[in-house]
C-alpha cells in the first residue's frame, strides 16, 4: 500500500513513517503541510493520504481543507485524518466535506499497528472509518437522542459499528453473526430511529452520525 503523510510535527511524522514501513506499507511522501503534500503527490497519487488536522499556516482546520482539495484532484485516493482531538464536530465536518474513502482517527491509534493498517486498507477501499472513541462518546452522551432507548442491545451494537463505518460484512464478522441477521438488525434500527434506509454504506455513516449528534435532550 502506498501512503503519503502530511504532518506538522517532525518527530511524529518520521515515527509514523517508520511504523508504516515496519507494517509493510510504502511511504511515498512525507511533508509538514497539506499544500506541500498536494504538490509532492501530484504526479503519482498514493493509495491513502494521512493528514493532520492542524497544520501551518493557520493551525485551524487545514487537514479538512486539504482533504477537500485532494478529493477534487485525486478522487480515488483514500484520506485518513489523524487528530489529537476527540471532537465529534471535526469528524462530522470531515464527512460533510468528503463522504467516501475517508477516515477520522485519533493519533492514539498508532499504538495498535494492525488496527491502523486495517483502517488504512478500508479507507483505500472506499469505506468510511470513524474512531470508536468518538462513536462511543456519542452513544454515551447525555444528549443522545431518546429514540436510541427503543433499541435492544444487539441493535445498539450494530448501530455502533455502522457509526464506525463498518460494512455489513464487517459488522457480521465482528459480531459473529450472519450477514442476513445483520441486515435484519440494520433494517430494524433504521425503522426504529426513523432514518431513511440508504443503499450506500458511506451515506449510512453520515446519516447515523448526524442522527447521533442531533441535539435532543430527551422528553
Amino acid at each position: 500500500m502506498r501512503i503519503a503523510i502530511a504532518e506538522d510535527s517532525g518527530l511524529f511524522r518520521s515515527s509514523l513513517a517508520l511504523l508504516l514501513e515496519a507494517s509493510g506499507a510504502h511511504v511515498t511522501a512525507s511533508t509538514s503541510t497539506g499544500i506541500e503534500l498536494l504538490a509532492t503527490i501530484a504526479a503519482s497519487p498514493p493509495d491513502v493520504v494521512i493528514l493532520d488536522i492542524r497544520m501551518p499556516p493557520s493551525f485551524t482546520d487545514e487537514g479538512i481543507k486539504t482533504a477537500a482539495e485532494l478529493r477534487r484532484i485525486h478522487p480515488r485516493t483514500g484520506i485518513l485524518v489523524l487528530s489529537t482531538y476527540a471532537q465529534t464536530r471535526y469528524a462530522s465536518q470531515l464527512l460533510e466535506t468528503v463522504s467516501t474513502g475517508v477516515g477520522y482517527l485519533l493519533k492514539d491509534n498508532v499504538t495498535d499497528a494492525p488496527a491502523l493498517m486495517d483502517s488504512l486498507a478500508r479507507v483505500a477501499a472506499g469505506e468510511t472509518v470513524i474512531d470508536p472513541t468518538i462513536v462511543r462518546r456519542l452513544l454515551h452522551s447525555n444528549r443522545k437522542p431518546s429514540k436510541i432507548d427503543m433499541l435492544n442491545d444487539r441493535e445498539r451494537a450494530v448501530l455502533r459499528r455502522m457509526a464506525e463505518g463498518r460494512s455489513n460484512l464487517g459488522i457480521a464478522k465482528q459480531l459473529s453473526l450472519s450477514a442476513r441477521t445483520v441486515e435484519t438488525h440494520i433494517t430494524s434500527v433504521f425503522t426504529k430511529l426513523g432514518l431513511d434506509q440508504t443503499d450506500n454504506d458511506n451515506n449510512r455513516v453520515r446519516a447515523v452520525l448526524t442522527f447521533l449528534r442531533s441535539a435532543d435532550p430527551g422528553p
Partner: protein
Amino acid sequence: MRAASLPSAGPAVSPGGTPGHGGQAQRWSPWLPWRGRRFRQAATAVLVVTACGTVAAQGTLWTQVPALAIVNVVTSLTFVFTGLTLYRQPGQRGVAWALMLAGVCRSLDFVDTWNAGPWPVYDVVCGGMDRVFGAWALLRYPNPRLPGYQRVFLIVLASWMLVGRTLIAVTSTARWNGESPSAWWPALMVNRRLFGLISVVVNAGEGVLGVAILVFLVMRLVQTRGLDRIVIAPVIVAGLAAAVAGSATAVVQMLASPGATPNGAFLTEGVVDLAVPLAFLIAVIQRALLLNNITVLAAQVSAGADVSAVRYALRATLRDPTLDVLDLSAPGPSLHDGDASASVGDGRAGASAVAVWDGPQPDRLVEFIRTEAGTPIAVIIADPALARYRGLFDAAVQTSGLALKNAQLQAQAARAELEQVRASRARIIEAGLAERRRLERDLHDGVQQHLLGLAAQLTAAMTSTADPAATAAFGQARDELKVVLRELRDLAHGIHPAVLSQGGLAVALEDVTERLPLPVRVIAPVSRAAPAVEATVYFVACEALTNVVKHSRADSASVVIRMTDTWLDMEIADDGVGGATPDGQGLANIVDRVRALDGDVTIDSPPGRGTRLVVRIPCE
C-alpha cells in the same frame, strides 16, 4: 471734604473708569463712585456751591441761633455729599438726585430768617419739599425705580403741598404765617375764614399723607429680604426717626405761641435728619463690606465642593434662599452598572436630585460657569435683586466656579486613574490568558506530539521484532505511554481548553456538556467573542454545570448564550431543587472572574423551583 481731597486712586484706575464687575470687584470700595477726575471736579464744585448757598440761606440764624445754623449746614451738605456718592452707583442716580435736592431744599427751609424779599413766601409754599425728596430716596433705595403707586402718591403729596400752601399764601398775610411784614407777600384774596379753613384742610391732608409714607417705610422694612435688608435697614430706621422728629417739631410749632420759634425742636430735628444721609453712607459701606462674605464662601467651598455644597454656600452668602445651582456637566460613564439603559447618558442622576436646566429664565438672574474651553459645567439661577450687588454676585460666582471646576478636575483625574487601573487589569487578564494558551499549545503540539511519535516508534519496534520478551517490554512501555498521554491531555485541558480557542464557545460547551450525566441543552452563537470573555464564560459555565451535577438533583439543564455588539449574556438554568446559597466558594469564584471583566452575576434559586444563574459581560 474727604472725597474731594482723595488722591487719584492708584495706577490701576483709569480716568472715567466705571464701576466694573469681575476682577475689579476685589477693589470695590465706597469711594469707587468718586473715581474719575472729571466727576471729582464736578462733585467738588457742587459741594462748594451748595456750601455757599446753604451758609447764605441760614440768614440771620447765624447771629440768633448759630448752633442751629451749623447743624442745618452740616445736615444739608451731608445730604448732598451722600447724593454725590450714590450718583455713580448703578441704578442709583434717581436716589442721588432726590438726596441732593432734599439737602438743598432743607437748607432753604430757614431762608425766611432774612425776613425780606420773596424768601418768607418761598418758605411757606415750598418748605416741605425736602421731606418729599427724602421720602422719594427712602422708598426707592436701592431699587432702580419706585413702585408705580408710590410714585403717584409722592406726586400727589407734592402737588397737594404746593397747591394747598399756595392757596394759604394768597388768602393770608405775612403776619398770619408768623413771617415778617416787611417781606413781599402775594396777598391776593385775604380772607381770615378762608385762610383758617384751607389751613386746616391742607395740614390735615399733609398729616394723612405723611402717615401713609410712614406706613410705606415700615412695609419696606418688614418685606425686604436678603442682602437688601442688611443694606436698607439702617436707611429706613433713620428715615422713620427723621419722620418722627419732623412730626414732633410740627406739633411743638403748632402748640407754641404765635411768633415764638421753637429753635430747640428745630435743632433736635436737624441732628436727627443728619442720620438719614449718614445711614445712606453706611448702606454704601455695608454693600462694600458684603464682599467679606466671599472670604467665608471661599473657605466653605474650597475643598472639593460639589454642586449641592456650592448651592448651600451661595444661598447663605448671597442671602437668597431661592438661589439654585444646576449641574450641566454630562454625567460620566457609569463605572459599574449592570443595567444596559444606564449606558445611555440621559442625566437621570441629576434629574432625581434637582431641577433640570430647561432654558433661559428671563425673570431670574442667570450666570453660567464654564470651563476654560467654554463648556458650561453649571448654571447659577438667582434672585434678580442680586443684580444690584453685581460685584458681590460676580465674585461669588467666580469663587464657586473655581470650586466646581476644581471638583470636576478632581473627578476627571479619579476617572482617568480608574480607567488606567481597569486597562491594566484587562492587560493582566489578557496576558495571563495568552500565557495559559501558549502553555497549552506547547503541551499539545510539542510534548504530546513527541510522546505520540515515541508511541509510534515503540509500535514499529514491536512490529519489527519477533522476540517475545522484547515485544512484552515494548508493550508495557507503550501502555504506560498511553497513561502519560491521557494525563498530559487532562493537564493541558485544565490549563486551557484547546477546543475553546479553536471552535469557540458553542463547540467547547457542546464538548463539555456531552460528558455530563444529564441532558444539557446548549444554545450559543457560532460567532466569536474576545478570548478573555470566552475563557471567562467557559469557566463560569463549567463551574455552574459542576454545581448543577453535584447539588441540584436536576433532570435537565440548559445553557443559553446571546451576544450583541456590546454585551454577552449567558443564562444557565436547571430544574433541580433550587435553594443555592450565593455565598458558596464556587459562586464566589464565578463572581470574581466575571467582575474582573466588569460583568454582573445574578442568581435566582428559590427552594424547589430550580436555579437560574445569569451572567452579563460587556464586550467591546
